[in-house]
């Protein structure tokens, strides 16, 4: 579904991502791990078009997406959450999700001004769909609360609901379990499984919580210093000597 081939990007003299290859197969939950500064988030930014790669290609469902603008890539079916939560803070939870229905809806200013039937129907649908998604992630009760006023764990869930509102085939989650306690990350893992099983969305996630990554992912890619260090099933990756060295150092 997603094929990343030999992708590199440098910032100044620093090669943040260096000829990385990565594959995500349809229907899997894939993990991207690595020590701090390994370039994981940069890979996300490359996939979602926030950066254009210096070299290499990114192909999503047979279509080259590298160098395309972010909104176009979202339209093609890739959505994401952010490591440092980036909700639309002053808007309500419901409105946050409705805002993300943008690329799946059509009506413009004129339809709104003339209050056409098509416009009203689309607005109603947008609202219903957003409410369904809030329900799905368990935020139906707080739909009118300002996003910035929600507790941290719920903000993470709202970001997921917002990303789902764009109807992605591939969902990128950047450290969804960061700062969560055991119960919270347990229920988050359940949510991610439901996203895959009930919505049929492929998931690629970054996390430092090894319990989450090992328990959730079908395949894992390990990055270190911008390069791919390993790739495989969780048990393979866990026993890979290079990975152990990167995380724990050499004895």
């Amino acid at each position: 579904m997603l094929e990343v081939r030999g992708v590199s990007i440098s910032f100044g003299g620093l090669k943040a991502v260096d000829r990385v290859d990565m594959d995500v197969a349809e229907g899997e939950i894939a993990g991207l791990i690595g020590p701090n500064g390994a370039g994981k988030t940069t890979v996300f930014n490359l996939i979602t078009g926030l950066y254009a790669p210096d070299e290499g290609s990114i192909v999503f469902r047979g279509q080259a997406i590298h160098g395309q603008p972010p909104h176009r890539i979202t339209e093609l079916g890739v959505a994401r959450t952010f490591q440092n939560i980036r909700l639309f803070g002053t808007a309500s939870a419901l409105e946050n999700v409705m805002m993300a229905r943008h690329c799946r809806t059509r009506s413009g200013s004129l339809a709104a001004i003339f209050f056409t039937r098509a416009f009203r129907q689309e607005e109603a649908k947008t609202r219903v769909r957003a409410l369904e998604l809030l329900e799905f992630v368990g935020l139906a009760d707080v739909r009118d609360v300002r996003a910035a006023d929600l507790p941290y764990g719920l903000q993470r869930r709202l970001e997921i609901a917002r990303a789902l509102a764009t109807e992605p085939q591939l969902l990128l989650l950047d450290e969804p379990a960061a700062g969560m306690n055991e119960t919270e990350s347990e229920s988050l893992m359940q949510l991610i499984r439901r996203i895959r099983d009930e919505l049929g969305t492929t998931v690629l996630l970054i996390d430092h919580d090894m319990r989450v990554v090992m328990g959730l992912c079908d395949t894992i890619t390990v990055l270190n210093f911008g390069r791919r260090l390993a790739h495989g099933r969780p048990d393979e990756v866990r026993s890979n000597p290079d990975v152990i060295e990167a995380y724990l150092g050499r004895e």
Partner: protein
Amino acid sequence: MPEFLAAALNAYNLQVAMLITINCLLGLSVWVPLSAGQLSLGGAGFMSVGAYTAALLTLQAGWPITLAIAAGAVFAALLAFLLGYPTLRLQGVYLAIATLAFGEMVRILALNLRITNGALGLAGIRQMVDEVTWYLWDHTSLGSGALDAHTIASLVVLGALLLILAVAVYCLLRQASSRVGRALRAIQADELAAKAMGIDTRYYKLLVFTQSGFLAGLAGGIYAHLYYFIGPSDFGFNRAIEMLLYVVLGGMQTLWGTLVGAAALTMLPELLRFSASYRLMLYGGLLVTLMIFRPEGLLSAATVDALSFRSRRRRAAAAPPGEGAA
């Protein structure tokens, strides 16, 4: 008609009321891009373009006033679109400076071009109130009662201006509560996240910029045909800042704040006339005081919400029966 009403409808009061509607349009032209997080100070430039275009069309091409004003607005919108293409890559204060520079360019062009008559400006522009007055004289018997024809004509023009403002407000409100408005708020809140959520930020920034140019150009065309004269100094740096003040002091969270700000700041210098030469000092002092004690502007979103009928009904519905309003 009661005496006091006839007295209140004097030429001066009506003129101030018309100026308020124009300034409301100008305030909205700043508010629209701000609602998507874009600070444009090019408003005076677009107003100038609208004013000169419309005035030249009536003066030299003999166009009807309404058509000329519309053409001025469309031309200003077109120019805003063309200017927006390169400048909307800029963010924050850089965009403000680039648009301010555009305003200065327009002013200097108007100062030096032959067609705009340089520093002398354009004089003898046809005036809306006059035209309506003549029409009333020629075709009706109005104006022989308590109100003279000129006052009635002023009322007609004021009514037309209020109608234009109402239409603009209606359109902007509808837009704000639609998919487009959500996109604008998303861009204002977090441009990067908006992009990642599938919003074409460039398109929407260009859209608000064009709308802003249209509103300022419209206000300019009306302004030109309310007075006999326009000159380059009518559309300088001061004007650009004044337009921004309407929005900031009125409260930029909602569109209503801009209208309140424009009305208040248009009337304030008039009300301060008693203080003669201290007038501008008092004006400045009041603005500073207001910003210190009410930084969110005269009308904040919370105030609007508290005043709105819909939220009152919502609160009433939310309150459990028997407990009353808490």
